[in-house]
């Protein structure tokens, strides 16, 4: 029963990791941009959520109404103002620039919020649970998982059923030809980053409700997000959810064996999958 419990809790943890990863997956898919600052943007979203809940006295989940559009606006401005200038045939400039943004964000957050760990107060939601077949499930992890599924389904719908998604896919396929179709790639990329950071806002809020956070934890979230994306296969959003779940289960099982092994077990499973299936489990593009 303990093991089953570990697997179920790990699966639910995977929902959070999928939320970390969805934005990364989206921007890599659309513009081949590897965003090193992604984890710090998640942390930024958590802090924006904290400020909103404190300033307005609202529940953290209600803060989404403010944080999601704020992060989307930041994303659009970041893309049009800085990141578009780094995109080209060479993968190195965007890596370096987003690494720089990561450092700047961390230090800015330190200046504004100090290094003290913070946490959002979500009231009863934090501890509420229910029994299911002998297992005790927390409402918050279950809600996180449901939101992750809804977010991925929503992104999938946008990508494959709307004109915006068509524009994303066309621009991803061939930027020059997409431009001929009247798509200004600078704007399309801005919209993609806005959408990615809107998802990041949700990830940041759930992170900040679930655990305490401080300005330095962005790197760790970035790694979890990356691992979920790679395990699931690049460019496959449902694969990203599966990748998050696999990572979460590996971590909880590792922690079950020995509490010190939680993170290590996740990384080992990631490396094993990478060794056996370099393109991930469900790659969209055949190698």
């Amino acid at each position, binding site marked *: 029963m303990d093991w089953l419990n570990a697997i179920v809790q790990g699966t639910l943890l995977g929902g959070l990791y999928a939320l970390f990863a969805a934005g990364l997956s989206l921007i890599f898919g659309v513009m081949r941009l590897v965003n090193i600052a992604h984890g710090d943007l998640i942390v930024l979203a958590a802090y924006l959520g904290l400020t909103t809940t404190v300033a307005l006295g609202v529940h953290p989940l209600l803060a989404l109404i403010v944080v999601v559009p704020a992060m989307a606006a930041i994303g659009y401005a970041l893309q049009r103002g800085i990141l578009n200038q780094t995109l080209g045939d060479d993968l190195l400039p965007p890596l370096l620039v987003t690494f720089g943004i990561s450092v700047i964000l961390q230090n800015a957050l330190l200046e504004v919020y100090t290094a003290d760990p913070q946490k959002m107060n979500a009231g009863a939601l934090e501890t509420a649970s229910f029994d299911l077949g002998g297992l005790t499930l927390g409402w918050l992890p279950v809600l996180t998982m449901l939101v992750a599924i809804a977010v991925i389904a929503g992104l999938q719908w946008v990508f494959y059923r709307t004109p915006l998604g*068509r524009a994303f*896919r*066309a621009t*991803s396929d*061939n930027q*020059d030809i997409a*431009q*001929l*179709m*009247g798509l200004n790639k600078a704007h399309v990329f801005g919209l993609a980053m806005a959408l990615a950071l809107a998802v990041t806002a949700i990830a940041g809020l759930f992170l900040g409700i679930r655990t305490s956070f401080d300005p330095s934890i962005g790197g760790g979230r970035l790694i979890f997000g990356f691992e979920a994306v790679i395990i699931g296969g690049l460019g496959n959003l449902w694969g990203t959810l599966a990748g998050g779940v696999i990572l979460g289960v590996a971590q909880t099982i590792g922690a079950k064996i020995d509490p010190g092994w939680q993170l290590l077990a996740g990384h080992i499973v990631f490396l094993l999958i990478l060794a056996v299936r370099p393109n991930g489990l469900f790659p969209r593009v055949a190698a």
Partner: protein
Amino acid sequence: MPEPILNTRGLTAFYKDFQALYGVDLSVDQGEVLAIIGANGAGKSTLLRSIAGLMRNGADQIAFKGQPIGALRADQVAALGIALVPEGRQLFPSLSVEENLLIGGRIKRPGPWSLEAVYKLFPILKERRNQASTSLSGGQQQMVAIGRALMSNPDLILFDEISLGLAPIIIKDIYDALPGIVGGGMSAVIVEQDISKALSVSSRVYCLQEGRVSLEGATGEISREAISRAYFGVE
């Protein structure tokens, strides 16, 4: 003489340090089908890419309906009513046949072309509309590429090597469809290596050689010998 819909003046174009066009002067009249011929590397595709906005050119080097467009981006040029059918078709592989056409129709200019009109011109595409564009034969892909360009209802359509890599029978089908496309008053520029094909549908022809215009004239008035000379540069 009708006003030219497009003209270029001293058009130059570069790929990094390599100069591909050396001062090309060209004009396309309203409703005219113009052919551009020339050997490989003469600058034909570069010329079309320049007009479509995919190259960096001087603002005043290209004028469309009297407006300088040389410095505009491709999406801005497309919105003014120029569409390019690119060499090698270049469909979007992640998009179905119908989605490829729909994205061509993102620019909603008024005119006769719509999804239905394209399907009427190329009925096979309607049957295949939900397939991946990569699953089509080369000829069918070319039909999608042409349909995609038509969907924006351009005033000027540029065809870059539409016969390249296609079987002769397919080429004939596609060229047979051309009068139906340009008949409605649309102007067209056709770039071809297949000279006889290009001459058969056009009223005027330019020959490019090493980035310069080496010959220009009405299709009926130019001799084959003059074309060979202009094409190969042998005197």
